[in-house]
């Protein structure tokens, strides 16, 4: 990762900030000298977490935000627990049933942190995902932000949830974007899962090219996520391909 920044292929680093909250901000900054950072919150569980725990977490996060001044702070629009039990992986919000609660909780979480929070769209599998673009528009109208994950939108489309065309209005309102590799599920290959372990698909790169004019004229950024099979050469190819499609 350091080599990607040093070579100029990447201009900032997005940190999964939950992993570092027990450190001091200085200790985190020391690992990225002179490199701008953004914060990606992985595990706030803001929708169903109790207020006391969320308040404690927000205080730690605010310290890092105040000291390190990230380019932006983002979080995940998903539910992480059911009946207090940790789900095997985050599940999409049932927008019809739990949307109003999620909207309130997102606003509350943003208020607690005291900075705009950009909420990332979910790589839908179930039909409930068809309601996601409309829900995100409500979220934006309510004053929250959007981190538009372009490959998650492709995954949702290919999983027969929200069609790709329904993201255009949201793309016009977003300035921060993500993209990553995805793959067929190990057990149910007809479903795609957001895996962050491979290079961007041709469909994702096509979507980047479609979104590019919708983002024109705004100061935008794009993060290429890679959590597994981390290989600098492969990641560099992704960065170059994404820049050619989107910059």
């Amino acid at each position, binding site marked *: 990762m350091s080599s990607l920044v040093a070579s100029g292929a990447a201009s900032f680093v997005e940190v999964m900030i939950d992993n570092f909250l*027990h450190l001091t901000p200085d200790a985190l900054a020391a690992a990225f000298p002179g490199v701008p950072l953004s914060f990606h919150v992985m595990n706030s569980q803001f929708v169903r977490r109790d207020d006391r725990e969320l308040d404690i977490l927000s205080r*730690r996060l605010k310290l890092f935000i105040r000291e390190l001044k990230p380019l932006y702070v983002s979080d995940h629009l998903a539910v992480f627990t059911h009946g*207090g039990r940790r789900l095997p992986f985050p599940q999409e919000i049932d927008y019809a049933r739990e949307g109003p609660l999620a909207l309130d909780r997102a606003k509350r979480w943003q208020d607690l942190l005291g900075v705009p929070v950009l909420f990332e769209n979910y790589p839908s599998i179930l039909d409930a995902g068809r309601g996601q673009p409309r829900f995100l528009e409500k979220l934006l109208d309510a004053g929250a932000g959007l981190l538009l994950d372009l490959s998650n939108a492709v995954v949702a489309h290919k999983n027969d949830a929200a069609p790709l065309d329904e993201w255009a209005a949201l793309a016009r309102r977003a300035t921060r974007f993500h993209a990553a590799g995805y793959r067929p599920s190990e057990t*149910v290959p007809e479903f795609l899962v957001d895996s962050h372990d491979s290079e961007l698909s041709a469909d994702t790169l096509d979507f980047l090219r479609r979104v590019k004019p919708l983002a024109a004229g705004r100061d935008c950024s794009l993060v290429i996520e890679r959590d597994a099979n981390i290989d600098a050469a492969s990641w560099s190819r992704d960065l170059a391909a994404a820049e050619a499609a989107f910059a």
Partner: protein
Amino acid sequence: MNAEALFTRAAAEALPADSKERALATVALRRIWHAVFDPCPRLSRLFGDKNREFLDPFLEHASRRGLSMRWPLHAHALLWMKEKRPAELSAPLAQELLAAAAARWANEDQSDAKGMLLYSTDAPGSGLAAWKLRAADQDVRVVLIEFPAPSLSGGIHCAPFAEERYPDAPAWRPLPD
């Protein structure tokens, strides 16, 4: 969908066979499979192709008990094996299960604690110490340590600590669900 189907095979198989919800539950159970077996090669070797004979009843137990499915999960698997499959539970396997729980704690705990001791009264005189990463470019650590057997009720106990070094008098608490 019935979220219980994301935790046990019986609930998953109650969903219509060709539904997206059934497929999602299958994906979820595979995630649990990886979460249980990937950090435990000894456990994986022990059950081999018959790993569902271990996993499915344990997950049923976990659902009945309402286990959180968070970091203590492997420690609860140890307790469950002790009760239900004692002949297969060796000391090295018990240590592997505790180490998996300790490592998961170090990776997912969001408190200010820097580390945690994990101790089973079945292995007096030693326990595991886990530390969260000490710098952004380091990894978590889990180490077997020796200490005088504390006077505790039978079972598994944990003791988070806030300093770099584990305390001489740990504040033991029962294993959470």
